[in-house]
């Protein structure tokens, strides 16, 4: 959004604004509150995506399942993928970006607090928009990748019907564009925050590893999302205005969609995994009582992954027949990218090697993440080879692979982060016994669900097919997988019980329950609105350990102070108003085919509202 640059420096405030109540949350620009909003919203979407998965697993439990019909199954796997990626893992990562990037770099807030609120509201409205499709009975059903021309509403031959004439795909196309605006706005914000708000002395190569990996994620978001935006615009034009960008009958090339999608889509998988890498890189040193092994190598391998990540997209497309030269190039680039990933795994093992390890819940999840990611990484290297890929593509082997990296990697990493940072966010310790039960059930459930998919895939069971006949040898493992999926779901029930149980307890978590290394542990739990009474001075990548050492191993509990003299940004409702403007402007494009000749007035009115909000926002009095 060009509007971001109109944002002023955090305006000063002298009068008190409400600290509680619904209105205070609607108008909040506090990065910590926005982080909690992201987390709560994303967790609900995550549970919805999980329920979609459970329905699919119930359908596939035995042969010739009749729980759902094929169309519903299409919608389920489409919405499961879309939800988990755009409404689950990305915003759960954004929760940690919001809450912990400013704390880890010693800042009072992000650079553009109102833009931050705007990002959240756009994300929320976009997520509701896509899921609203269920209510009107037209959920997206073209896969999370939306391959052309499954997404076409054009009749292309006399004998075949249009693949997707309803509004299903429109919800997906427009919803993703709304979410893209949220992602780009947030990425700009965090990117500049990390570059510019690091506390005095915190050089780039002294930043905590979570902040480093987040930084790389913001770069990827900024460079990958414009590409999917363009692809979605083309698709929208094809559906609404009769162009042929991806339709062969007008000369278009469906393969171009795949290219544009995966130019975005491959960096996207690093957007999903790098935050988890960063979280593991925070937790492993703290619970091994050793600094991160090979800090600089970790940073540069992350940056290398991001850069090369833009040159491997076609390995998702070996089956389209790109010819030997393209296959060779993308195959080699994919194998090369395994090297920096291997460096990271080596360094994590080097970190815990010889450490004095404490197996807390957070540590267990972080270790689980490393182990499970290795399995997913190895199967990934397997299908970097085109001949192997041609055997594996579109089978459950691929489903196994990306669930080991996305569930075993991202979700385990994010859950580790939740256990690690929960005391900091809410001032309450989570129950360790329940936490460990959560871990073991999730670990067992995860492997029962996804490991047999390797066997099924190599035996030829195709993805995205709503059922299978008996006698093909698929029965046993499908039954095991479904049992595993319900164990997984049960493990999250334990997590929720843990939250509810400890929520009623006293908010008495110490500032630094784990003997952490980074700045967020130097302030009370939960932090006060202004985070730091004075900007901290940083002399290494483990400032809190420096402080411990300087204090002779005993640090006093930091006191809560009266921070009325510290200028914090004013609350504002214009970010929400502008978000509604974005939502209505893009949402009005749903009516292009329904209200020909009239939709334009809705779009213009919404765009004017957006402009009005942006001007009110830009010229909002600072006091």
């Amino acid at each position: 959004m060009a509007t971001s640059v109109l944002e002023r420096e955090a305006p000063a405030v002298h009068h008190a604004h409400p600290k509680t109540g619904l209105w205070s949350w609607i108008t909040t620009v506090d990065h910590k509150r926005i982080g909690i909003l992201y987390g709560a919203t994303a967790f609900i979407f995550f549970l919805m995506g999980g329920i979609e998965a459970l329905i699919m697993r119930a359908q596939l439990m035995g042969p010739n399942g009749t729980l759902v019909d094929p169309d519903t199954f299409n919608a389920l796997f489409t919405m499961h993928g879309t939800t988990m990626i755009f409404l689950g893992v990305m915003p759960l990562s954004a929760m940690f970006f919001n809450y912990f990037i400013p704390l880890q770099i010693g800042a009072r807030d992000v650079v553009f607090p109102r833009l931050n609120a705007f990002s959240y509201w756009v994300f929320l409205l976009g997520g509701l928009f896509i899921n609203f499709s269920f209510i009107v009975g037209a959920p997206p059903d073209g896969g999370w990748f939306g391959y052309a021309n499954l997404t076409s509403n054009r009749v292309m031959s006399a004998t075949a019907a249009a693949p997707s004439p309803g509004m299903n795909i429109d919800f997906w196309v427009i919803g993703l564009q709304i979410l893209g605006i949220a992602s780009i706005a947030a990425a700009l914000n965090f990117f500049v925050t990390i570059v510019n708000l690091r506390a005095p002395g915190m050089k780039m190569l002294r930043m905590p590893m979570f902040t480093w990996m987040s930084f790389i994620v913001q770069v990827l978001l900024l460079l990958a999302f414009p590409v999917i935006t363009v692809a979605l615009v083309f698709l929208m034009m094809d559906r609404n205005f009769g162009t042929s960008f991806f339709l062969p009958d007008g000369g278009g090339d469906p393969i171009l969609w795949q290219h544009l999608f995966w130019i975005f889509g491959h960096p996207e998988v690093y957007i999903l995994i790098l935050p988890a890498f960063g979280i593991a890189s925070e937790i492993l040193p703290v619970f091994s009582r050793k600094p991160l092994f090979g800090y600089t190598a970790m940073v540069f391998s992350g940056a290398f992954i991001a850069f090369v990540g833009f040159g491997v997209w076609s390995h998702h497309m070996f089956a389209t027949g790109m010819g030997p030269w393209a296959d060779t190039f993308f195959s080699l680039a994919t194998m090369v990218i395994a090297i920096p990933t291997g460096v990271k795994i080596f360094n994590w093992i080097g970190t815990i090697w010889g450490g004095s390890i404490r197996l807390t819940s957070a540590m267990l999840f972080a270790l689980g993440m490393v182990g499970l990611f290795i399995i997913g990484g190895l199967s990934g290297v397997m299908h970097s080879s085109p001949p192997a890929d041609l055997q594996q593509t579109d089978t459950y082997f691929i489903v196994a692979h990306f669930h080991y990296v996305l569930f075993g990697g991202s979700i385990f990493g994010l859950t580790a982060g939740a256990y690690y940072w929960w005391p900091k966010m809410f001032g309450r310790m989570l129950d360790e016994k329940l936490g460990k039960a959560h871990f073991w059930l999730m670990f067992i459930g995860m492997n029962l669900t996804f490991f047999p998919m390797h066997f099924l895939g190599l035996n030829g069971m195709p993805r995205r097919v709503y059922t299978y006949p008996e006698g093909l040898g698929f029965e046993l493992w499908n039954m095991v997988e479904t049992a595993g999926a319900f164990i997984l779901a049960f493990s999250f029930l334990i997590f929720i019980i843990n939250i509810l149980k400890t929520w009623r307890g006293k908010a008495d978590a110490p500032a630094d329950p784990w003997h952490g290394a980074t700045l967020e542990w130097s302030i009370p739990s939960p932090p006060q609105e202004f985070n730091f009474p004075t900007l901290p001075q940083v002399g290494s990548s483990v400032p809190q350990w420096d402080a411990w050492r300087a204090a002779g191993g005993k640090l006093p509990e930091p006191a809560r102070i009266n921070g009325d003299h510290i200028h914090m940004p004013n609350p504002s409702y214009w970010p929400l108003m502008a978000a509604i403007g974005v939502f209505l402007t893009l949402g009005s494009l749903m009516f292009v085919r329904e209200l020909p000749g009239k939709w334009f007035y809705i779009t213009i009115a919404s765009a004017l509202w957006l402009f009005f909000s942006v001007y009110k926002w830009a010229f909002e009095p600072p006091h």
Partner: protein
Amino acid sequence: MDAHAAHGHAEDHAHPTPGLYLRIAIILFVLTALEVAAFEVGRNAGAPLHALIEPIVVEILLVLSAAKFALVAMFYMHLKQDSKIFTNFFVWPLVIAAGVILALIILHEYWIKTTF
């Protein structure tokens, strides 16, 4: 990207003057005229130097437009005198953008040639 980057401040360098801006504008104008001239010469079989220019029109256009691009970025957008951080913010995405354009052209041309 650290405190030393602050040295990139405009004050540290000779500040560009309207005279310099005017010279750049004239160069940009001339380069644009050359672009159109290359196009016209390449199009008209009877034009002077046609045989020489025609096979390399695309290369000429790319070089001229890259030169114009660089002039605007360096002088009008002040990248030459501003902090190197800004240059990095612009040039790295440009590298990836150029790579994407090039790769897509190659992939599509190659696909057509080997399929039909």
